[in-house]
């Protein structure tokens, strides 16, 4: 919360170089991904500014398929902005960002970077699931209708098949009996579980979670984290912006600490959460733990 702008001048030169290498290297031993596989997400000195305000500065990060990456850091550190850049809800201002080997929002043609058409951007988004802090379920549709909307309308799946799969997904998140309920009739935890099922219905290869438990009553946090733990155990590639350090410690392969729009350090949870290399990380952890 404090010192949003104070750090970058000193942090950038010292951290930009190690972080490009560290997350990728660290990820390999824990995950079973084959060496040399195409990374699911590769960010290279990504920059994002809103007018005068710089939200991201030289963010470099690699996410390996099948791994869980948790982004932690104070409010305003750019975690959410970076997450939104990955499925092009925000357009990056500089650097290079790839998902599964392809540029996000752009294509390369004869050595030039060209903007993609909205249709192509939409096609790429289908493969990236996103779960929002405030659920963003469609209030005029029931739980099941929320789940089957995109498979039927976007992927042109047969309705009967989508319904069958939608029911299976609801059962998986423990809500088999609430298929006909409208979002307003569900608790926050139930809504977020439906939102996760809705994202999974598109069979994504990558799942983005933007503070999925921050808007929940404390006693409802556990049920959502449990679903996410199961998902991680099944090998889903996940990037999770979170303040739940307990979840990060248990489920993450890599924890990335961000502050003032840059990656300060990244590493396996055992290292980063217990013996951080940077003073800024230590200060943050001492406040939240």
């Amino acid at each position, binding site marked *: 919360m404090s010192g949003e702008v104070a750090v970058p001048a000193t942090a950038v030169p010292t951290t930009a170089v190690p972080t490009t290498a560290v997350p990728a290297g660290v990820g390999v031993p824990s995950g079973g991904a084959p060496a040399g596989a195409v990374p699911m997400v590769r960010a290279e000195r990504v920059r994002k500014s809103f007018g005068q305000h710089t939200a991201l500065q030289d963010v470099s990060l690699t996410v390996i398929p099948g791994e869980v990456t948790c982004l932690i850091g104070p409010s305003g550190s750019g975690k959410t902005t970076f997450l939104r850049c990955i499925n092009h*809800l925000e357009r990056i201002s500089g650097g290079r960002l790839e998902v599964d080997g392809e540029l996000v929002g752009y294509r390369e043609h004869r050595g030039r970077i060209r903007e993609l058409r909205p249709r192509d951007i*939409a096609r790429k988004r*289908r493969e990236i699931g996103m779960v929002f802090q405030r659920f*963003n379920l*469609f209030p*005029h549709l029931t739980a099941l209708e929320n789940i089957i909307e995109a498979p039927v309308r*976007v992927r042109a799946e047969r309705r009967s098949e989508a319904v069958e799969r939608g029911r299976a997904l609801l059962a998986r998140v423990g809500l088999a009996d609430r298929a006909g309920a*409208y979002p307003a009739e569900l608790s926050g935890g139930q809504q977020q579980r439906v939102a996760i099922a*809705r994202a999974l219905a*598109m069979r994504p290869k990558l799942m983005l979670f933007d503070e999925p438990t921050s808007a929940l009553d404390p006693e409802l946090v556990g049920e959502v984290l449990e679903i996410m733990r199961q998902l991680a155990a099944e090998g889903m590639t996940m990037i999770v912006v979170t303040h739940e350090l307990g979840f990060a410690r248990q489920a993450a392969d890599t924890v990335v600490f961000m502050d003032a729009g840059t990656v300060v350090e990244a590493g396996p949870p055992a290292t980063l959460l217990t013996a951080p290399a940077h003073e800024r990380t230590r200060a943050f952890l001492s406040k939240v733990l």
Partner: protein
Amino acid sequence: MTAADASPPQRGAGVDVDAVPLRHPGRWAAGVAIGVLAAMGVHSLVTNRNFQWGTVGDYLFAEPVLRGMWATVYLTVIAMAIGIVGGIVLAILRMSPNPVVAGAAWLYIWFFRGTPLLVQILFWSFIGALYPRLSLGIPFGPSLVSGDANHIVPLFAAAVLGLGLNEAAYMAEIVRAGINGVDAGQTEAASALGMSRALTLRRIVLPQAMRTIIPPTGNETISMLKTTSLVSVISYNELLNATRLIYARNFQTIPLLIVAALWYLALTSVLTVGQHQLERRFARGTLPRVGQRR
């Protein structure tokens, strides 16, 4: 404190409060005053022979009046259909990222809201004076079809265009407010699922915007029903014009105006009920059913 702590068990939790109710003399006075005024009104309605209730009864279901009444209904439906469809299109155009498109929609709304409806209706009926011949063809090139403007835009078309195109300008603002009222997170969630802009608008945003669009649209429809009486100036034979034609012949002005007023009241009452049903339909998902909220 201690005394209060000790007493509740003795009084018991379930005993009803037995208190002297507060008197409301003001309410009684207002009630009596309104009652007296109402009695005076009814008395005058019954005793003032100039109302000529017998004549009202004679003409209430007269054939020309009924024909005029149906013409009013017909005009209202068609003008509102043009208004609603036009309003949705204009609202979407106004939110276009293309400044020329958005500007054109703004100009339309500015013009049609900025001039009196009566003037617009007169303009449409005199379109033949402005453009004696209308033609369809290549811009600045040869024309493919052409005809006499007075044939292409007959009286009915002038009435409907005048009412509908004006209504579209007002509906556009209502629709735009409804769309803007939908949480931006809804559009983001739809985008994240790979839905296109058009699909998001049709399936996610508009159904939710309907909840805020319906009540003012109901008001617009009720207002339109009565505004159709303006086209009597171009002699289109709707309800008001039908009664005017009758009293021009028999000079029973007051009873025939009462006939018209009674029909307008009856029609707006029907519309009010319909509006209520529509509002309930589009409140889906916002009204918790049988007390299971949260």
